C-alpha cells in the first residue's frame, strides 16, 4: 500500500469520471477486472440532492438554478484505505462500485484499475462528447453572400 494518497488532482479526475459514468458501466468494468475486496461501510449509499447554481449573465452573481439527485457513500478497505463516492442520479450499486474503485486507486491495484476501468470510461466519455460535437458541427451555418452588382 502506498503511504500517501495520490495528489488531489488525480483523485479529483477519477472521482469526476466515476460520477458521470453511465448506469452500470463502471461496475461492469470493475467486476471484469478483479474480484471485489472486503470492506466495511463508513456511510451506506444514500440518495440526496445538490443545489445547482448558475450565475446571472453567465459571469455575475450566483443564483440557485435547481437541484439534482446525487448518491453518495463511503467505505473502508480491510487495510484501512477510505473510498468515497458522490455520483449523479439515484444509483446505490454504482455508488458502491465507485467508492471501491476510489479506495483501490489508492493501493497497488491502481495501475490495473486505471487500465481496465478508468481509461475505458474516459474513452467512452470522449467518444460520446465527440459524437454530439460532430452532429452539432454538421448543423453549423456556412453563410455566403449572393453576388449583386452592375458589372
Amino acid at each position, binding site marked *: 500500500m502506498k503511504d500517501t494518497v495520490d495528489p488531489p488532482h488525480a483523485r479529483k479526475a477519477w472521482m469526476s469520471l466515476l460520477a458521470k459514468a453511465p448506469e452500470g458501466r463502471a461496475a461492469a468494468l470493475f467486476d471484469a477486472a478483479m474480484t471485489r475486496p472486503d470492506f466495511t461501510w463508513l456511510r451506506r449509499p444514500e440518495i440526496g440532492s445538490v*443545489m445547482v447554481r448558475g*450565475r446571472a449573465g453567465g459571469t455575475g452573481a450566483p443564483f*440557485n438554478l435547481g437541484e439534482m439527485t446525487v448518491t453518495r457513500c463511503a467505505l473502508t478497505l480491510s487495510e484501512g484505505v477510505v473510498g468515497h463516492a458522490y455520483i*449523479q442520479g439515484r444509483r446505490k450499486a454504482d455508488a458502491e462500485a465507485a467508492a471501491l474503485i476510489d479506495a483501490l486507486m489508492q493501493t497497488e491495484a491502481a495501475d490495473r484499475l486505471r487500465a481496465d476501468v478508468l481509461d475505458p470510461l474516459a474513452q467512452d466519455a470522449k467518444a460520446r462528447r465527440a*459524437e454530439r460535437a460532430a452532429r452539432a458541427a454538421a*448543423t453549423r451555418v456556412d453563410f455566403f453572400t449572393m453576388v449583386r452588382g452592375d458589372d
Partner: protein
Amino acid sequence: MYVAVKGGERAIRNAHAWLAEERRGDPAVTELSVAQIREQLALAVNRVMAEGSLHDPDLAALAIKQARGDLIEAIFLIRAYRTTLPRFGVSAPIRTAAMACDRRISATFKDLPGGQVLGPTFDYTHRLVDFKLAAEGDAPRAPTGAADPGDVPHVMDFLNREGLIEEARPDDTPPPDLTREPLELPASRALRLQALARADEGFTLGLAYSTQRGYARNHPFVGELRIGAVAVEMEIPELGFAIEIGEITVTECETVNQFTGSKTEPPQFTRGYGLVFGQTERKAISMALVDRALRWEELGEDNVGAPAQDAEFVLYHADNIQATGFLEHIKLPHYVDFQSELELVRKLRRTAGADGMQEAAQ
C-alpha cells in the same frame, strides 16, 4: 352546527383503481416504458425537470407516466419527492462558457467565433404533421461534420470589449434559496432568477410576450442562445477539494436590450438572462425577457405599471404548483362554508323582501 362527513373511503379507493386502469389504457396496446418516455418524449421530461426543479431524467419520465402525461401533475410529484431528499450541498456555479454546445445561435451577430450552430431544432421545419412517424421505421441517423476543439466563447464578450453593454461582474454573494426561506419582497435578482427558472412555462411565456407587445417594452434581441452539457462541480467536505458530481444539459439565453440611459447609467445595451434545465429554449428566452423587465428599478427606468415589471405579481403567480394547489382546492368539499353562505343569502333576501313590502305599503 358541524356535521362530520364520512363514507368516501370506498369511493376514493375505487376511483384510484379506475385511475390505474385508465392510465394503462387498452391492454392490447404495448405498455409505455419509463426509458421510452425518457428517450422519446425528452422535451416533456426536460420541462418536468425544470419546473419540478430537480434534474433527474428517469424520475421525471416516471412522473410523466404516473401522471398520464399531465405535466403539471408530474411536476407536482417531482416537487413532493424533492422535499424527501437530504441536501448534500450546493454546487459551484456552472460554467456555461465551457458548455459542450449542441446548439448555439445569435440573432445579433452573423459571423462569430464558433459559428451559428442550429442543433436539433424545430426551427425551419414546416410544421406539417409527418405521417411517416405513424409507421415504425429505422432509427434515423444525423450527418456529422468536423468539430472545432475548445470552448465556444460567449457572444457578450465581443460587445463588452467596446464597453457598449453592461457587464455581469463576478460576485460571490451567497444567493437566497426559496426552497429554504419563504419568498419575501423586495426580491433580489438572484431570488427572482431562481423563481423564474422553475416558473410555469406558459405563464412566463405570456408575460414575456406582453413585454414584446408594449407592456414594458424593452426591445430585446437574442444575443445568444446555447444548449448543451455542462459539468456540475461541488466541494466535498470530507475530501477538502471539489470534484465533478455529474453533467447536466441546460439552456442559456442572453438578451441584448436597447437602453437609452438613465440618471445613473450611460446609454448602452442592457441584458436579460435565462437559464433552465434541459433543452427548454422557449422557457429560457421567456425567462430572459421577464428578468430584464423586472430589472427596471436597478436600471433607473420608469415603472409603467406593466404586469411584467411587478415583481410581486410575477413571483407570487409564476409557480404552477402553488397556483394549482390553491386553484384546485376549491373543488374539494366546502359543504360547511357553503352552508353558511347559503344562510346569509337567504337572510339578506328575507330582509330585502320585508323592506320591499314595507315600501310598497307606504
